[in-house]
Protein backbone atom coordinates (compact mmCIF):
# COMPACT_ATOMS: atom_id res chain seq x y z
CA UNK A 1 0.00 0.00 0.00
CA UNK A 2 1.32 3.46 -0.81
CA UNK A 3 1.54 6.28 1.70
CA UNK A 4 -1.66 7.98 0.55
CA UNK A 5 -3.56 4.72 0.62
CA UNK A 6 -2.60 3.99 4.21
CA UNK A 7 -3.53 7.52 5.22
CA UNK A 8 -6.98 7.09 3.72
CA UNK A 9 -7.29 3.75 5.51
CA UNK A 10 -6.43 5.41 8.83
CA UNK A 11 -8.93 8.23 8.24
CA UNK A 12 -11.62 5.70 7.33
CA UNK A 13 -10.89 3.63 10.41
CA UNK A 14 -11.15 6.75 12.61
CA UNK A 15 -14.42 7.76 10.96
CA UNK A 16 -15.82 4.29 11.57
CA UNK A 17 -14.71 4.48 15.18
CA UNK A 18 -16.41 7.87 15.58
CA UNK A 19 -19.61 6.57 14.02
CA UNK A 20 -19.47 3.53 16.26
CA UNK A 21 -18.97 5.74 19.32
CA UNK A 22 -21.83 8.01 18.29
CA UNK A 23 -24.17 5.04 18.03
CA UNK A 24 -23.03 2.73 20.76
CA UNK A 25 -21.20 4.73 23.39
CA UNK A 26 -23.09 4.79 26.68
CA UNK A 27 -21.65 7.11 29.30
CA UNK A 28 -21.01 5.39 32.60
CA UNK A 29 -22.90 5.55 34.97
CA UNK A 30 -26.12 4.98 33.05
CA UNK A 31 -27.66 8.24 31.85
CA UNK A 32 -30.22 10.01 33.98
CA UNK A 33 -33.71 9.25 32.94
CA UNK A 34 -32.96 5.58 32.55
CA UNK A 35 -36.25 3.75 33.15
CA UNK A 36 -36.38 1.19 35.92
CA UNK A 37 -38.97 -1.32 34.77
CA UNK A 38 -37.23 -4.26 36.38
CA UNK A 39 -37.74 -3.04 39.96
CA UNK A 40 -41.01 -4.16 41.56
CA UNK A 41 -41.01 -1.26 44.05
CA UNK A 42 -44.58 -0.74 45.20
CA UNK A 43 -46.49 0.57 48.19
CA UNK A 44 -45.17 0.42 51.74
CA UNK A 45 -45.90 1.91 55.14
CA UNK A 46 -43.28 3.30 57.53
CA UNK A 47 -43.43 5.24 60.80
CA UNK A 48 -42.71 8.94 61.02
CA UNK A 49 -42.92 11.28 64.02
CA UNK A 50 -46.33 12.33 62.62
CA UNK A 51 -47.57 8.75 62.46
CA UNK A 52 -47.58 6.14 59.70
CA UNK A 53 -46.62 7.26 56.19
CA UNK A 54 -47.48 5.19 53.14
CA UNK A 55 -46.29 5.63 49.62
CA UNK A 56 -49.93 5.79 48.48
CA UNK A 57 -50.33 8.95 50.62
CA UNK A 58 -48.34 10.62 47.82
CA UNK A 59 -50.62 9.37 45.03
CA UNK A 60 -50.90 12.09 42.40
CA UNK A 61 -47.52 13.54 43.37
CA UNK A 62 -43.99 12.71 42.37
CA UNK A 63 -41.99 11.17 45.21
CA UNK A 64 -38.27 11.35 45.80
CA UNK A 65 -37.23 8.38 47.91
CA UNK A 66 -33.88 7.81 49.58
CA UNK A 67 -32.69 5.03 51.87
CA UNK A 68 -30.04 5.96 54.43
CA UNK A 69 -29.50 6.53 58.15
CA UNK A 70 -28.91 9.52 60.40
CA UNK A 71 -25.50 8.39 61.69
CA UNK A 72 -24.35 8.35 58.06
CA UNK A 73 -21.21 10.48 58.16
CA UNK A 74 -20.99 11.72 54.58
CA UNK A 75 -23.01 10.00 51.89
CA UNK A 76 -26.53 10.72 53.17
CA UNK A 77 -25.84 14.39 53.97
CA UNK A 78 -24.35 14.78 50.49
CA UNK A 79 -27.35 13.18 48.79
CA UNK A 80 -29.92 14.97 50.96
CA UNK A 81 -28.16 18.31 50.46
CA UNK A 82 -28.41 17.83 46.71
CA UNK A 83 -32.12 17.03 46.95
CA UNK A 84 -32.71 19.95 49.34
CA UNK A 85 -30.89 22.38 47.06
CA UNK A 86 -32.95 21.17 44.13
CA UNK A 87 -36.14 21.68 46.18
CA UNK A 88 -35.09 25.26 46.89
CA UNK A 89 -35.02 25.90 43.16
CA UNK A 90 -38.55 24.63 42.56
CA UNK A 91 -41.59 26.90 42.48
CA UNK A 92 -44.18 26.56 45.27
CA UNK A 93 -46.55 25.00 42.72
CA UNK A 94 -43.93 22.38 41.84
CA UNK A 95 -43.11 21.72 45.49
CA UNK A 96 -46.80 21.12 46.15
CA UNK A 97 -46.63 18.22 43.70
CA UNK A 98 -43.63 16.62 45.37
CA UNK A 99 -43.16 14.29 48.32
CA UNK A 100 -39.67 13.61 49.66
CA UNK A 101 -39.20 10.59 51.87
CA UNK A 102 -36.06 9.51 53.73
CA UNK A 103 -36.34 5.91 54.93
CA UNK A 104 -33.84 4.76 57.54
CA UNK A 105 -32.24 1.35 57.08
CA UNK A 106 -30.93 1.63 60.66
CA UNK A 107 -34.11 1.30 62.76
CA UNK A 108 -32.03 0.12 65.73
CA UNK A 109 -30.73 3.67 66.20
CA UNK A 110 -33.09 5.87 64.19
CA UNK A 111 -36.33 6.64 66.00
CA UNK A 112 -39.09 8.58 64.18
CA UNK A 113 -38.36 11.60 66.43
CA UNK A 114 -34.66 11.52 65.62
CA UNK A 115 -35.45 11.19 61.92
CA UNK A 116 -37.83 14.17 62.02
CA UNK A 117 -35.13 16.38 63.54
CA UNK A 118 -32.62 15.11 61.00
CA UNK A 119 -34.62 15.73 57.83
CA UNK A 120 -35.80 19.16 59.02
CA UNK A 121 -32.16 20.24 58.89
CA UNK A 122 -32.21 19.71 55.12
CA UNK A 123 -35.70 20.83 54.11
CA UNK A 124 -38.97 21.37 56.00
CA UNK A 125 -40.87 19.34 53.45
CA UNK A 126 -38.77 16.20 53.84
CA UNK A 127 -40.26 13.34 55.82
CA UNK A 128 -38.08 10.91 57.76
CA UNK A 129 -39.40 7.49 58.67
CA UNK A 130 -38.45 3.92 59.44
CA UNK A 131 -40.06 0.62 60.43
CA UNK A 132 -39.18 -2.71 62.01
CA UNK A 133 -36.01 -4.35 60.70
CA UNK A 134 -38.12 -7.02 58.96
CA UNK A 135 -40.32 -4.43 57.21
CA UNK A 136 -37.30 -2.37 56.14
CA UNK A 137 -35.64 -5.49 54.74
CA UNK A 138 -38.77 -6.34 52.78
CA UNK A 139 -39.13 -2.82 51.32
CA UNK A 140 -35.41 -2.64 50.50
CA UNK A 141 -35.54 -5.91 48.59
CA UNK A 142 -38.40 -4.62 46.42
CA UNK A 143 -36.43 -1.48 45.60
CA UNK A 144 -33.17 -3.29 45.01
CA UNK A 145 -31.58 -1.46 47.95
CA UNK A 146 -28.60 -3.09 49.60
CA UNK A 147 -27.48 -2.28 53.13
CA UNK A 148 -25.12 -3.99 55.53
CA UNK A 149 -23.84 -3.14 58.96
CA UNK A 150 -20.08 -2.71 59.20
CA UNK A 151 -18.41 -2.62 62.57
CA UNK A 152 -16.10 0.38 62.89
CA UNK A 153 -14.64 0.97 66.32
CA UNK A 154 -14.53 4.73 65.97
CA UNK A 155 -18.02 5.17 64.49
CA UNK A 156 -20.84 6.44 66.68
CA UNK A 157 -22.10 3.42 68.64
CA UNK A 158 -19.54 1.27 66.89
CA UNK A 159 -20.90 0.73 63.40
CA UNK A 160 -21.61 2.29 60.04
CA UNK A 161 -24.05 1.02 57.44
CA UNK A 162 -22.91 0.50 53.87
CA UNK A 163 -25.91 1.22 51.70
CA UNK A 164 -27.11 1.90 48.18
CA UNK A 165 -26.72 5.61 47.69
CA UNK A 166 -29.12 6.10 44.79
CA UNK A 167 -32.08 8.42 44.92
CA UNK A 168 -35.37 7.10 43.51
CA UNK A 169 -37.87 9.14 41.58
CA UNK A 170 -41.34 7.62 41.76
CA UNK A 171 -44.17 8.66 39.47
CA UNK A 172 -47.64 9.89 40.41
CA UNK A 173 -48.77 6.25 40.48
CA UNK A 174 -45.89 5.29 42.79
CA UNK A 175 -43.95 3.42 40.16
CA UNK A 176 -40.17 3.76 39.99
CA UNK A 177 -39.37 6.16 37.15
CA UNK A 178 -35.67 6.75 37.63
CA UNK A 179 -32.71 6.07 39.88
CA UNK A 180 -30.15 8.82 40.27
CA UNK A 181 -26.57 7.88 41.19
CA UNK A 182 -24.84 9.35 44.22
CA UNK A 183 -23.31 12.68 43.31
CA UNK A 184 -26.12 13.80 40.99
CA UNK A 185 -26.06 17.60 41.05
CA UNK A 186 -28.97 19.77 42.27
CA UNK A 187 -29.28 21.20 38.75
CA UNK A 188 -29.63 17.72 37.27
CA UNK A 189 -32.23 16.83 39.91
CA UNK A 190 -34.26 19.96 39.09
CA UNK A 191 -34.01 19.04 35.43
CA UNK A 192 -35.24 15.49 36.01
CA UNK A 193 -38.08 16.62 38.26
CA UNK A 194 -39.27 19.22 35.75
CA UNK A 195 -39.12 16.60 33.07
CA UNK A 196 -41.36 14.36 35.16
CA UNK A 197 -43.84 16.99 36.39
Amino acid sequence: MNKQGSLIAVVLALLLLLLGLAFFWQPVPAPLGHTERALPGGDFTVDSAQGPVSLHDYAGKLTVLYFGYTYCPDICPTSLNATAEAMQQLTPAELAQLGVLFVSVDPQRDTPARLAEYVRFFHPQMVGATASPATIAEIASRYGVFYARQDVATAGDGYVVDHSAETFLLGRDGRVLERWPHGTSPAAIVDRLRHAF
Partner: protein
Amino acid sequence: MKKLAFFVLTLSLSAAALAGAADQVSVDQPYVRLAPPNAPATGAFMRLRNSSEQDVKLLKASNPASRVTELHTHLNDNGVMKMRPVANIEIKAKGEAVLQPGGLHVMLIDLKTPLKEGDVVPVTLSFDDGSEKTVDAPVMRSMAGGMPKMQHGH
Protein backbone atom coordinates in the same frame (compact mmCIF):
# COMPACT_ATOMS: atom_id res chain seq x y z
CA MET B 1 35.57 19.69 64.03
CA LYS B 2 34.73 17.59 61.00
CA LYS B 3 32.25 15.71 63.15
CA LEU B 4 30.63 18.95 64.27
CA ALA B 5 30.37 20.18 60.70
CA PHE B 6 28.75 16.92 59.74
CA PHE B 7 26.35 17.25 62.66
CA VAL B 8 25.42 20.79 61.64
CA LEU B 9 24.98 19.68 58.06
CA THR B 10 22.73 16.81 59.11
CA LEU B 11 20.78 19.11 61.36
CA SER B 12 20.24 21.71 58.68
CA LEU B 13 19.30 19.03 56.16
CA SER B 14 16.72 17.58 58.49
CA ALA B 15 15.45 21.07 59.22
CA ALA B 16 15.04 21.57 55.50
CA ALA B 17 13.22 18.27 55.32
CA LEU B 18 10.98 19.30 58.20
CA ALA B 19 10.05 22.46 56.38
CA GLY B 20 9.59 20.39 53.22
CA ALA B 21 6.19 19.00 52.49
CA ALA B 22 4.26 21.43 54.64
CA ASP B 23 5.76 24.34 52.71
CA GLN B 24 5.30 22.66 49.34
CA VAL B 25 1.68 21.72 49.84
CA SER B 26 -0.87 24.50 49.62
CA VAL B 27 -4.38 24.03 50.91
CA ASP B 28 -7.34 25.63 49.15
CA GLN B 29 -10.93 26.00 50.28
CA PRO B 30 -10.75 24.03 53.51
CA TYR B 31 -14.13 23.65 55.22
CA VAL B 32 -15.91 21.47 57.71
CA ARG B 33 -19.40 20.44 56.77
CA LEU B 34 -22.08 21.60 59.17
CA ALA B 35 -23.36 18.32 60.57
CA PRO B 36 -27.07 17.52 60.84
CA PRO B 37 -28.47 17.48 64.40
CA ASN B 38 -27.12 14.66 66.60
CA ALA B 39 -24.57 13.61 64.00
CA PRO B 40 -21.61 12.04 65.79
CA ALA B 41 -19.23 12.87 62.97
CA THR B 42 -18.67 15.17 60.05
CA GLY B 43 -16.18 15.64 57.27
CA ALA B 44 -13.49 18.21 56.56
CA PHE B 45 -12.83 18.88 52.90
CA MET B 46 -10.14 20.75 51.02
CA ARG B 47 -7.94 20.78 47.95
CA LEU B 48 -4.25 19.95 48.51
CA ARG B 49 -1.76 21.07 45.88
CA ASN B 50 1.81 19.82 45.80
CA SER B 51 4.19 22.25 44.09
CA SER B 52 7.29 20.10 44.68
CA GLU B 53 8.98 17.56 42.43
CA GLN B 54 8.29 14.75 44.86
CA ASP B 55 5.15 12.87 45.79
CA VAL B 56 3.95 13.76 49.26
CA LYS B 57 1.79 11.65 51.52
CA LEU B 58 -0.64 13.04 54.04
CA LEU B 59 -0.35 10.56 56.89
CA LYS B 60 -2.56 11.98 59.57
CA ALA B 61 -4.84 14.82 60.49
CA SER B 62 -5.85 16.09 63.90
CA ASN B 63 -8.17 18.73 65.28
CA PRO B 64 -9.37 19.95 68.67
CA ALA B 65 -13.11 19.65 67.92
CA SER B 66 -13.40 15.87 67.75
CA ARG B 67 -11.98 13.04 69.83
CA VAL B 68 -10.90 11.03 66.79
CA THR B 69 -9.67 12.20 63.39
CA GLU B 70 -9.26 9.78 60.50
CA LEU B 71 -8.47 9.86 56.80
CA HIS B 72 -11.23 8.21 54.83
CA THR B 73 -12.35 7.47 51.33
CA HIS B 74 -15.48 6.11 49.71
CA LEU B 75 -15.60 3.14 47.40
CA ASN B 76 -18.54 3.02 45.02
CA ASP B 77 -19.37 -0.67 44.82
CA ASN B 78 -22.22 -0.92 42.31
CA GLY B 79 -24.05 2.07 43.72
CA VAL B 80 -23.29 1.10 47.32
CA MET B 81 -21.06 3.72 48.90
CA LYS B 82 -18.62 2.19 51.36
CA MET B 83 -16.67 4.45 53.63
CA ARG B 84 -13.28 3.08 54.64
CA PRO B 85 -10.25 4.46 56.47
CA VAL B 86 -7.12 4.93 54.34
CA ALA B 87 -3.52 4.77 55.59
CA ASN B 88 -2.57 7.96 53.75
CA ILE B 89 -3.60 10.34 51.01
CA GLU B 90 -1.02 10.76 48.28
CA ILE B 91 -0.47 14.11 46.61
CA LYS B 92 1.53 13.50 43.44
CA ALA B 93 4.48 15.71 42.49
CA LYS B 94 3.05 18.85 40.86
CA GLY B 95 -0.36 17.32 41.41
CA GLU B 96 -3.26 17.65 43.76
CA ALA B 97 -5.57 15.65 45.97
CA VAL B 98 -9.18 16.74 46.23
CA LEU B 99 -10.98 15.98 49.45
CA GLN B 100 -14.70 16.30 48.80
CA PRO B 101 -18.06 14.80 49.80
CA GLY B 102 -18.42 11.29 48.45
CA GLY B 103 -14.66 10.83 48.12
CA LEU B 104 -11.50 11.36 50.15
CA HIS B 105 -12.04 13.34 53.33
CA VAL B 106 -10.81 14.01 56.83
CA MET B 107 -13.38 12.54 59.21
CA LEU B 108 -14.01 14.32 62.48
CA ILE B 109 -15.40 11.55 64.66
CA ASP B 110 -17.05 11.90 68.04
CA LEU B 111 -17.45 15.67 68.17
CA LYS B 112 -16.85 17.12 71.62
CA THR B 113 -19.58 19.72 71.18
CA PRO B 114 -21.84 20.28 68.19
CA LEU B 115 -20.25 22.62 65.64
CA LYS B 116 -22.15 25.68 64.48
CA GLU B 117 -22.07 27.49 61.18
CA GLY B 118 -19.31 30.10 61.44
CA ASP B 119 -17.12 28.11 63.85
CA VAL B 120 -13.56 27.62 62.67
CA VAL B 121 -11.76 24.32 63.20
CA PRO B 122 -7.96 24.32 63.00
CA VAL B 123 -7.03 21.10 61.20
CA THR B 124 -3.41 19.98 61.51
CA LEU B 125 -2.08 17.93 58.61
CA SER B 126 0.98 15.70 59.13
CA PHE B 127 3.02 14.66 56.12
CA ASP B 128 5.31 11.68 55.50
CA ASP B 129 8.48 13.74 55.97
CA GLY B 130 7.44 14.71 59.47
CA SER B 131 6.37 18.24 58.59
CA GLU B 132 3.04 19.66 59.67
CA LYS B 133 0.67 22.35 58.55
CA THR B 134 -2.41 23.75 60.26
CA VAL B 135 -5.28 25.18 58.26
CA ASP B 136 -8.38 26.95 59.52
CA ALA B 137 -11.48 25.25 58.22
CA PRO B 138 -14.71 27.22 58.64
CA VAL B 139 -17.88 25.26 59.38
CA MET B 140 -20.42 25.67 56.62
CA ARG B 141 -23.45 24.03 55.16
CA SER B 142 -22.20 21.74 52.48
CA MET B 143 -23.03 22.40 48.91
CA ALA B 144 -23.72 19.17 47.11
CA GLY B 145 -21.69 20.25 44.09
CA GLY B 146 -18.57 19.54 46.14
CA MET B 147 -17.09 22.84 47.17
CA PRO B 148 -19.24 25.29 49.05
CA LYS B 149 -21.08 27.98 47.11
CA MET B 150 -19.25 30.76 48.93
CA GLN B 151 -16.08 29.75 47.12
CA HIS B 152 -17.63 30.13 43.69
CA GLY B 153 -17.87 33.89 43.84
CA HIS B 154 -15.95 34.50 40.64
